[in-house]
């Protein structure tokens, strides 16, 4: 029996009707396309009246298929699917034609626009005939959540969920949560002390009944899909019994082995071979750094074991694998600092008094290696002048094309701290001063008032090659002052490089484990850059904080909370709908060649050894259709995008070419 198709062409006010003759398109479709029962145009199809019209026609005319030619399906596909469903028609028997974004808005010529619109309506109409009723699938959502990364974004997400009463596993690869924020002294623009606002959240997370803290742990493997992920986590051996340790710290105090702390203290301070990264660490349980521990390297010492009052030291401890089940995953894995040695002309690593911003944060920090005294590399001399260089490795196509977003403000903050703590002259070398959040511009004005010097120009080089007695013994910052149009050489005692914020080195690898991708620059790709910034293309996997792109603390916190809210929504609903767009293999016809097996990025195709055929695991399939296109026997089919549907759509789109071919033109 032939289908009964209804076609609805929207004016969208004058948005479509301005460059497409919508009445003509509807009239033409009604006359020329087979099986079309109703073809109408209407001012605003998405309005309740428009929807009601479609619903009524479905019932009255007994429509079995519906095409709406209006805007992008990304806007209103759901609206019209619902309308169909209301009228008792399976929503997957509906097709949407994009006349606004793809025709009327991009075309000036009404005749040509109308012709294109006809072809696109024909394409939808031919395709819709072959569409099949589909039923969305629903799966239960496990209310537990995994948060990866214990920086401020991850802490925020974990606490929001835990406070709402849901179980959270918080995984952090360092021995303590806190992330980069724990290293900072003050935070811009309010200058509140970073530790004062962060550590309460850290201890809250450490003590929360709903949070299982897995520090010094890394995500090993993820399987399953939204609602029901199975996750393997490697708990690295601390060599300290978590349950016995009271965090008294005697072991670190007595440990005879002192090493430079390249981690938390950014190379400026020291720590012991058994250590907690900083005094407020959560948990307080230390770890043994086996590469430097005398016992592990030379088999002798065991001082920590001897002094531990609770016998918590366990040299035999092994890495442990923990398996957990969660419904959703939030990635909040943060960033890493650009390696400033990659720009040798700035002298980092060669000229002693060139510092990175992270080193300088520790230098300013009252709990840092100098107790907050700003001194040169010799540990005692107070600098008389300091240059802060912006955009080191950012806004540079050789390293990171993007702007790191926070360095201008961080530079202003460091400038303020220097002016507050020393009598030094402070120079900021910037390309553009970017202070575009609440109270940021005001903070810039404050620094102008406080007497920080600003030079607009990207620094060319920092050198110790003096050209005159003035420069002798100094670091000379050479640049063009672009506001003067003149080259300048400014001798200073100390240089601070504002290194770029870069994606974590293993971001891509972790993303692959969770089935999400990275941008060219290495940031996690969100579902929509504006309208869906914390969800990802993989249902049940969310991102928060700097792993999604460079951002400041308020934005990281907001994203952490937003991701938690999205997860709560999933948990509250209890069930999650899965679009029924999946591939299926006709096992009868499958030759078992296994070509499709390796193509699937989600390992959703299994090979059944006993039957000698392949099968799609529906729950894992995301419906990309690559296997469908690749199957040499043509026995894999993609629901809602099967070959018959696509071929029909091509035929419709070329209706005029086909007509020309049937009746060769006479010129």
């Amino acid at each position, binding site marked *: 029996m032939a289908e009964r198709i209804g076609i609805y062409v929207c004016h969208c006010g004058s948005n479509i009707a301005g460059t497409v003759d919508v009445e003509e398109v509807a009239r033409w479709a009604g006359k020329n396309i087979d099986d079309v029962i109703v073809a109408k145009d209407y001012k605003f199809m998405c309005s309740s009246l428009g929807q009601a019209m479609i619903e009524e026609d479905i019932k009255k005319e007994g429509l079995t298929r519906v095409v709406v030619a209006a805007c992008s399906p990304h806007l209103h596909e759901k609206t019209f699917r619902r309308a169909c469903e209301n009228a008792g028609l399976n929503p997957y028997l509906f097709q949407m034609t994009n006349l606004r974004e793809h025709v009327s808005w991009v075309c000036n010529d009404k005749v040509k626009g109308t012709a294109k619109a006809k072809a696109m309506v024909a394409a939808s109409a031919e395709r819709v005939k072959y569409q099949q009723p589909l039923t969305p699938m629903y799966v239960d959502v496990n209310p537990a959540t995994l948060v990866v990364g214990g920086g401020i974004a991850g802490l925020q997400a974990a606490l929001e969920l835990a406070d709402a009463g849901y179980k959270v596993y918080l995984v952090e690869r360092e021995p303590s949560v806190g992330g980069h924020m724990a290293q900072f002294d003050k935070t811009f623009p309010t200058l509140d002390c970073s530790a004062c606002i962060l550590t309460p959240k850290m201890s809250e997370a450490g003590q929360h009944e709903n949070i299982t803290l897995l520090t010094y742990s890394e995500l090993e493997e993820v399987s399953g899909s939204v609602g029901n992920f199975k996750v393997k986590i490697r708990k690295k051996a601390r060599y300290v019994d978590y349950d016995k340790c009271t965090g008294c710290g005697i072991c670190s105090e007595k440990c005879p082995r002192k090493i430079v702390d390249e981690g938390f203290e950014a190379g400026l301070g020291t720590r012991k071979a058994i250590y907690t990264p900083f005094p407020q660490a959560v948990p307080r349980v230390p770890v043994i750094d086996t590469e430097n521990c005398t016992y592990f390297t030379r088999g002798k010492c065991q001082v920590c074991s001897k002094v531990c009052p609770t016998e918590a030291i366990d040299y035999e401890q092994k890495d442990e694998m923990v398996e957990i089940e969660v419904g959703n995953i939030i990635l909040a894995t943060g960033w890493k600092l650009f390696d400033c040695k990659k720009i040798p002309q700035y002298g980092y690593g060669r000229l002693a008094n060139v510092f990175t911003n992270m080193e300088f944060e520790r230098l300013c920090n009252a709990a840092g290696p100098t107790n907050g005294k700003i001194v040169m590399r010799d540990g005692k001399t107070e600098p008389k002048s300091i240059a802060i260089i912006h955009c080191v490795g950012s*806004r540079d*196509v050789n390293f990171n094309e993007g702007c790191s977003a926070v360095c201008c403000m961080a530079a202003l903050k460091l400038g303020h701290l220097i002016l507050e703590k020393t009598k030094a002259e402070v120079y900021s070398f910037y390309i553009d001063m970017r202070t575009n959040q609440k109270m940021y511009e005001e903070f810039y004005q404050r620094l102008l008032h406080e007497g920080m010097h600003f030079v607009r120009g*990207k620094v060319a080089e920092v050198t110790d090659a003096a050209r005159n007695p003035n420069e002798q013994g100094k670091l000379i910052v050479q640049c063009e002052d672009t506001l003067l149009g003149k080259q300048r050489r400014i001798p200073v005692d100390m240089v601070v490089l504002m290194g770029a914020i870069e994606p974590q080195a293993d971001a891509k690898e972790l993303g692959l484990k969770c089935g999400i991708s990275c941008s060219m620059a290495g940031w996690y790709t969100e579902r929509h850059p504006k309208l869906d910034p914390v969800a990802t293309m993989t249902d049940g996997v969310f991102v928060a904080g700097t792993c999604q792109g460079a951002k400041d603390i308020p934005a990281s916190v907001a994203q952490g909370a937003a991701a938690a809210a999205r997860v709560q929504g999933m948990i509250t609903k209890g069930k999650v709908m899965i679009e029924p767009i999946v591939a299926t293999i006709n096992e009868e016809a499958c030759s078992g060649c296994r070509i499709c097996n390796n193509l699937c990025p989600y390992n959703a195709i299994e090979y059944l050894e006993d039957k000698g055929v392949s099968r799609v695991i529906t729950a894992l399939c995301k419906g990309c259709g690559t296997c469908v296109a690749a199957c040499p026997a043509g026995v894999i089919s993609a629901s809602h995008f099967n070959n018959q549907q696509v071929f029909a759509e091509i035929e419709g789109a070329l209706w005029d070419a086909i007509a020309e071919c049937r009746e060769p033109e006479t010129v």
Partner: protein
Amino acid sequence: MISKSNESGTSSFLEEVIEDTPGGERIVHCLQCGSCGGSCPNGADMQYTPRTLFAMINANQREAVLSANTMWMCVSCYLCTTRCPQNIPITDIMYALKRKAIAEKLAKGTDAPALAKTFTDLLDKYGRSFELGLASRYYLLNRPVAMLKMGPMGLSMFTRGRMSLLPTKIKNLEQLRAIIHKARELGDAS
């Protein structure tokens, strides 16, 4: 950021510069950061830094650009080029501007075009460069006073066998000249 359009909307100087420089299209990405002007060993003596020149090119200030001393201060050290955060081939743009300035006789206050001309002529004539010939012709014509100061140095060079009195000629001068002739012809045609 430099845009290709200009106030009058006609074919701009910017487009010409892009056309004449291999990789020149990168110029539109200039951030005006000044790492070129800051890096240049002669930057302090430039009338306009390269960055300023790019802004002037964008503003279609053709004559001012071509009569600037900037490109004549360029020593082809390529520091600006390798340091440019936008990969603009700055040194090559300087070469393109030198050629334009010479062709349009806008080069001012510099002996560089004369040196280039003398050098090129000698090359065309002998196929090799000839230091004494270059020195005598170029200095006598352009900088007779400087020539006197060069005397002692020239003598030291001569006594150490580092200055030859006669030019070396290549064997197949005919072939070289034919190539040069054809290249000029092709250059003039385009």
